[in-house]
């Protein structure tokens, strides 16, 4: 199957899901009005990827901003990752936030709690 690569825009995040390495990157901002349109192909890709039974996947989520309609879809992505885990794949979520962005850190903890997946919450310095 093909890697999933979607370029980022001012409204939508950059997606780089790599079949071979199992690294799933989600970066930038996610504030489109129509989240359904953007996230449906992403979720479909993950559905197909489960069949490849990768040994390990690492989701690297590094978002600057996202709206609440995107927040539902981020949870959907995490729920899909749970399916991998059930199927025997080792799953890790790396949640990145800018040092002073306490809300983004808390949101990471919220997702860790709700999804029940192993999270690493990682801060980085502002550029």
């Amino acid at each position, binding site marked *: 199957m093909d890697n999933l690569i979607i370029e980022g825009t*001012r*409204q939508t995040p950059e997606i780089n899901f790599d079949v071979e390495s199992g690294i799933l990157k989600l970066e930038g901002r996610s*504030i489109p*009005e129509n*989240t*359904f349109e953007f996230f449906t192909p992403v979720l479909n890709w993950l559905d197909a990827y489960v069949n490849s039974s990768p040994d390990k996947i690492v989701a690297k989520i590094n978002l*600057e*901003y996202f*709206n*609440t*309609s*995107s*927040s*539902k*879809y981020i*949870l*959907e992505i995490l729920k899909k990752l749970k399916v991998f885990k059930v199927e025997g794949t080792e799953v890790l979520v790396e949640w990145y936030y*800018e040092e*002073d*962005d*306490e*809300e983004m850190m*808390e949101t990471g903890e*919220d997702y860790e*709690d*709700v999804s029940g997946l192993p999270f690493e919450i990682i801060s980085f310095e*502002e550029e």
Partner: protein
Amino acid sequence: MNTYEKFRKLMDNHIMLSFKGEITSDIITMVLQIMETRLDSVSEKGNVKKKIFNVLVECMQNLYHHSEAEEPGNIDTRRAMLELFYDNDFYYILTGNYIKNDAIAALRDRIDRVNSLSKEDLRRYYREILDNNIISDKGGADLGMIDMARKSGQKLFYQFHDVNDSLSFFELRVKVAKNKPKLDK
């Protein structure tokens, strides 16, 4: 009021942006672009800038999805307003849009509930809604109010203004505290 008085009023009230009209996708993109630049130039710390930007995104999302038309059935009359201004202590994001009278009670309840919760309870409520709500075609609108209260760290001020038998005008005001210079201890 003559033009100069109008200009003075805009200046004295520290209005950073004022818009009325239909909130389209293009308008949202444009407003966010302008505000990002403006917030950069007032050199607010990243943190405050992010809070304002987050609230603004959510407010416009609400206007985009939930504004009712002023003339029933005429979608070209989904007019709304958005204003950003500040005083010594806060930034304010003010929105106004038409709402059907029969939708008022539910909205009022939702905001009152959000306003009644402590920071921790708000977080618990957020997790609960995030986990349990199915995705609607308008996205996670229920989360919007909770998110704005969390991000702003302030109570949400609202008011419904009478318009006619079927419509009211919904005013929502969200404030974000400015950075205070740290005092030496």
